């Protein structure tokens, strides 16, 4: 039977079929659906870990403990998980361990577009890269066989277009895989220097063996079209190249992108007039070809930045261009915005009016950086808001700290914010940290996290008590405020900025998209409206301005009745209406 599956769903299907027992991941676009889909299989234990490092360590422990294991993350998650993964390369596995990492060329939903293939090289870990959903499933399954045969964790590299494209996948049954026995083995599993030194030697031997495997494996396949031009490529780029060039070239399609073969590439290139390397982001394959003396054309011609497509290949290689229409008028952009009823809105409106320095973080609330809220000064990586504010305050002193805050979501606080807050308390800066507790991991599509009281599978569990946690760290000023109540937020913010010690404000209100959240009646604008447009400053997609009547208008289909706009209207012209 064939099904139309997302690449991510196909990976999950592979995990199921290959008998994986434990999956631990942290969400991150474009990787999230792997773990969500895996959670639908009762046979697999699946969980959301607080961050990628924890997830990778859980997977490591499970693999050592004898169960095939998986952890999934986006590319930047691999930075967080790198520490255990580099040493797991030395330790190897008992049952197979696979690390799924999804890159985001073009930065559809990311803060950078780093190329994870560099990690495979740096950690000396085999990396497979599928080019459609069928390969997502097949390569996932193969990865476990290779992991066990070569005693190594294996990377499965995806990119946005592979993760989020559906194509047909042949479905099979689950293999019955027994839990492997666990035998204590200090020299293998305890990485003291004395044990690690011989392990590093073993890793180098393993890479050599894997290079030999790469010479003959079916994943690295040659498609001979009797052409004079060759293309070496992998993943989504293979599909773009086929689309743009068709049978006009011979292809070396690499299913394993680390380690790369030597003889196979040399023999592929021999006799061809010209060989192109088509790869998104860094020049990993190209650099390898050049290092082994194969003359190829790559980044001298093709971009190092952004996502490729057939258009890029036509533009730079075949010099083709499609005819297309265009309208003369310039069209307004449509950036993503906070949803109607988003609890972050009232808070960011207040921060904007208070004109404070906002050390930002990553989540739906990063949208508070855009107009009209425009209330964010920095956004680096998850968890950085609190630590960067501490640094900013230490640099600029007492006065600055009275005009500066950090904002961080509940999931992000759990991810890597706690250690930063420990630092604020321990090294005492008068930092004001605002935890935006919307009771969910919103940005990535509503995943549970340790503050929500539910597991990935939807079962009730203990929830972190944020107030008690902050107090136990050593922050004695902890205030909770409802962000729908703009006046209350203004008052608390003013008080905490003045305080002579570190403090935490918990802005608490569940995400308006959550199923259990009941929306109030939509609001409407009455005749008191003077057209001052102050309400437009909250940046709500349910509000617009009617040029004819010179009054604000509220879309009753989408308004959730949160009252943030009503709370700032100087004429009390926004009142309860009725849902049509």
């Amino acid at each position, binding site marked *: 039977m064939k099904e139309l599956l997302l690449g991510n769903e196909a990976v999950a299907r592979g995990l199921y079929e290959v008998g994986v027992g434990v999956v631990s991941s942290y969400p991150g676009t*474009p990787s999230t659906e792997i773990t969500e889909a895996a959670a639908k299989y009762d046979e697999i234990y699946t969980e959301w870990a607080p961050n990628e490092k924890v997830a990778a360590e859980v997977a490591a422990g499970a693999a050592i403990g004898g169960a095939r294991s998986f952890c999934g993350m986006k590319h930047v998650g691999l930075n967080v998980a790198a520490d255990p993964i580099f040493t797991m390369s030395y330790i190897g596995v008992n049952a197979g361990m696979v690390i799924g990492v999804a890159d985001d060329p073009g930065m559809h*939903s990311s803060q950078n577009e780093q190329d994870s293939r560099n990690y495979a090289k740096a950690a000396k870990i085999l990396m497979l890269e599928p080019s459609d959903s069928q390969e997502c499933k097949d390569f996932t399954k193969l990865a476990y066989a290779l992991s066990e045969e070569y005693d190594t964790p294996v990377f499965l590299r995806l990119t946005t277009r592979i993760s989020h494209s*559906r194509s047909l996948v042949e479905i099979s049954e689950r293999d019955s895989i027994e839990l492997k026995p666990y035998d204590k083995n200090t020299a293998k599993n305890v990485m003291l220097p004395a044990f690690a030194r011989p392990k590093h030697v073993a890793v180098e031997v393993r890479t050599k063996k894997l290079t030999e495997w790469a010479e003959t494996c079916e994943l690295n396949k040659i498609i001979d079209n009797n052409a004079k031009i060759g293309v070496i490529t992998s993943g989504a780029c293979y*599909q773009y190249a086929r689309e743009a060039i068709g049978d*006009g070239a011979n292809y070396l399609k690499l299913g394993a992108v680390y380690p790369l073969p030597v003889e196979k590439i040399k023999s592929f290139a021999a006799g061809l007039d010209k060989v192109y390397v088509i790869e998104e982001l860094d020049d990993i394959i190209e650099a390898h070809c050049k290092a082994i003396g194969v003359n190829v054309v790559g980044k001298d011609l093709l971009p190092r930045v952004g996502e490729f497509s057939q258009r890029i290949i036509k533009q730079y290689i075949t010099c083709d261009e499609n005819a297309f229409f265009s309208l003369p008028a310039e*069209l307004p952009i449509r950036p993503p915005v906070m949803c109607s009823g988003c609890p972050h809105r009232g808070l960011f409106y207040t921060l904007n009016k208070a004109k404070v320095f906002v050390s930002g973080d990553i989540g*739906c609330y990063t949208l508070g950086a855009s*107009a*009209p809220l425009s209330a964010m000064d920095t956004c680096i990586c998850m968890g950085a808001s609190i630590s960067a504010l501490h640094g900013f305050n230490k640099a600029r002193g007492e006065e600055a700290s009275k005009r500066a805050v950090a904002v961080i979501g509940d999931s992000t606080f759990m991810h890597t914010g706690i250690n930063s807050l420990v630092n604020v308390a321990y090294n005492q800066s008068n930092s004001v940290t605002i935890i935006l507790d919307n009771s969910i991991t919103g940005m990535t599509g509503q995943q549970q996290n340790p503050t929500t009281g539910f597991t990935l599978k939807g079962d009730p569990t203990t929830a972190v008590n944020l107030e008690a946690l902050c107090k136990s760290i050593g922050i004695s000023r902890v205030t909770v405020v409802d962000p729908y109540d703009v006046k209350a937020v203004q008052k608390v913010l003013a008080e905490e900025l003045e305080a002579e010690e570190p403090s935490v404000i918990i802005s608490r209100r569940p995400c308006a998209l959550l199923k259990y959240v009941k929306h109030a009646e939509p609001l409407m604008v009455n005749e008191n409206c003077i057209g001052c447009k102050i309400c437009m400053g909250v940046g709500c997609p349910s509000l617009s301005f009617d040029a004819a009547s010179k009054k604000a208008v509220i879309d009753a289909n989408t308004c959730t009745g949160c009252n943030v706009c009503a709370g700032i209207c100087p004429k009390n012209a926004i009142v309860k209406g009725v849902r049509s």
Partner: protein
Amino acid sequence: MSNSRGGFPCPPVNAESVKSIIIVGVGGQGTLLASRIMGDALVQKGYDVKVSEVHGMSQRGGSVITYVRYGDEVNSPVIENGEADIILAFEELEAARYLPFLKPGGTVITSTQQIDPMPVITGAAEYPQEVILAIESLGITVRRLDALSLAKQAGSVRAVNVVLIGALAKDMDIEKEVWLSALEKCVPEKFLELNQKAFELGYNSY
């Protein structure tokens, strides 16, 4: 290496046998369900299919595009300028934004709904006037329907996506029963009747 294809003799293998449709709209309008229904119908017809979706950030009210490609053998999951046989637009401004994707001779099917983007709400930009007329003035066939009203008529504003799938179905070479069975597979049972109604309203809208 002097010819126009950089020395490549053959035209691409499947340029003609593969059809391409883009679904464009505003994040949250339900374009993902539309592409799932379409994918299912195409699979039932025995095509090779690729559907490329947008998840993540832009689903928060941003401009979104989904690519659907089908034929004997589909390679690239994405569609580029000048490649789409049909643009199915959930919103007028988005129909205009993605117009360059249309192939010469292609069709635009658009809902007449207009949703102000944030720069318009804040007054930094204006919603363009008469974009559909501007598209038509280029000689392009545009089919427009008030999908929002039809969805309301079916019972929920959320059924806009299925109304538009109904409108698209009329333009495609797939039997109505196939579409209806795809619909049945993709929507929850308790909303099936509402969605069937929405589909019919879209199907009979022109």
